[in-house]
């Protein structure tokens, strides 16, 4: 961001005033809707301010990976749809989309949010596969946090489908009442550093000024289950400590919206 514009932003941040009047550590209003797509086994829509993200979960059965015969499969995919931002182009996921997907994946996988051991149908032969697709609808900043929350909500909305005799999913039959074996609820808080100020839930305009950012996935126990540093400026260990602290304090705000 051009330095004069950044200086101007810093002046406002120093007075704890964001460009939309919020405080530095304040999130925009968050809403969560469940079951927005009847074709998915689980789905959700999350709005953080004007940013809107949809997530759909599809269940299938396939062979387990050779090195994990007693675990179900999990995949997270994200698309920054061209309809959500004039700068996005249609095509395969680029860097930003890939990062969003992988950081959410890490939070879900490493925290063992889904007990994949309970997703086995026949060990070594047939397991459940959970495919999570993140689709952005309107980008007004902070897609990462919105995406992770939407994924959590969609997983909570998911109901297991019935199986045919050949242990394939019967998509024509009504779903069972059983949900996924969920054990943890990691939410992601992305903390931004500009100059000597730290804030969360950046607007698109503020995102242009980012020097460094740290996405912190926090479980309901307050432990950290994933981290991702972005931006091209370095962070001191003290700054990292402070940013994790901020994330831990704000995670309950996001979780409350579920």
């Amino acid at each position, binding site marked *: *961001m*051009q330095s*004069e*514009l950044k*200086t*101007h*932003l810093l*002046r*406002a941040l120093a*007075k704890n*005033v*964001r*460009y*939309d*009047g919020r405080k530095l550590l304040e999130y925009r209003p968050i809403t969560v809707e469940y079951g927005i797509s009847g074709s998915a086994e689980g789905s959700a829509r999350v709005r953080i301010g004007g940013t809107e993200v949809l997530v759909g979960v599809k269940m299938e059965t396939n062979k387990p990976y050779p090195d994990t015969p007693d675990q179900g499969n999990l995949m997270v995919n994200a698309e920054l749809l061209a309809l959500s931002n004039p700068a996005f182009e249609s095509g395969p996921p680029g860097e930003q989309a890939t990062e969003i997907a992988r950081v959410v994946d890490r939070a879900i996988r490493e925290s063992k949010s889904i007990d994949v051991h309970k997703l086995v149908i026949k060990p070594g032969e047939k397991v459940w596969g959970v495919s999570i697709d993140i689709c952005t609808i309107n980008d007004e900043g902070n897609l990462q946090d919105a995406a992770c929350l939407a994924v959590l909500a969609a997983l909570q909305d998911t109901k297991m489908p019935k199986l045919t005799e050949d242990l394939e999913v019967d998509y024509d039959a009504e779903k069972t009442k059983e949900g996924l074996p969920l054990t943890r609820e990691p939410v992601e808080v992305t903390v931004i550093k500009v100059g000597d100020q730290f804030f969360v839930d950046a607007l698109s*305009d503020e995102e242009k000024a980012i020097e460094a950012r740290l996405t912190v996935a926090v479980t309901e126990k307050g432990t950290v289950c994933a981290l991702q540093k972005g931006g091209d400026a370095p962070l001191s260990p003290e700054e990292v400590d402070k940013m994790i602290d901020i994330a831990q304090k704000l995670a309950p705000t996001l979780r409350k919206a579920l």
Partner: protein
Amino acid sequence: MTEEVLVKDKDIVVPGETIATGMSFLPGKGTYRENDKIIAQKLGMISVEGKVIKLISLSGAYTPKLKDRVIARVVDVLMTGWRLEINSPYSSVLTLKDATSEFIPRGADLTQYFALGDYVVCQIVNVTSQKLIDVSMKGPGLRKIRGGRIITVSSQKVPRIIGKDGSMVSMVKQATGCNIIVGQNGLIWLDGTPEGEVTAVKAFKKIEEEAHLGGLTDRMAAWLEKETGVKVNPTAAPTEAPQGTEGEPHPHHFGGSQ
């Protein structure tokens, strides 16, 4: 065939909708005649002035016009000048001779004058049929922008934001104490206290949303007084050019023109 206007003044019409029947009516911009019908060609608000059917656009791209003052961003430094984005499908060129009254020696480093990412207030001096656009920085009030922040509104709403003889934008300046420059292309520059800027931005968004509704001036005066505590007089605004002022913001200074 009956001579009849089928909609009321200030009604919203959609493309393809018949507005009037009869040969005595004249189709204004945004409408067209098909046999004896006048049909809307855009989503907009109808304004019947005698026998002329006019359509006021509520949305649409900025169409660069001769003499328009716009806020532009430098996107390329050329051999003989700069390329500037003006929030339209067409970019514009600022040549050396139109850039400044200073003498620019041949081979000089043009980024010393305007660098990539700089914002300027300039004037459109030529638009060819092929949409090649020339701008100039020579003239009163035309200059490089320093500091402050820039927001974008629909260019169709700019006349309402400026108001009759600048009355609307003058009220916003009075109440918030911000320096404000409104470009015909929908870009607005503001510079004031962080709180003042937040209020000004909210005010412009409100005017944008309600531009087509009556009584806006009085409503905005009341809203501004509620938000800032400053009593603004919607009718006693001084006549001034729709550009802003130089210098420091005056929190409760009436007017703010030169």
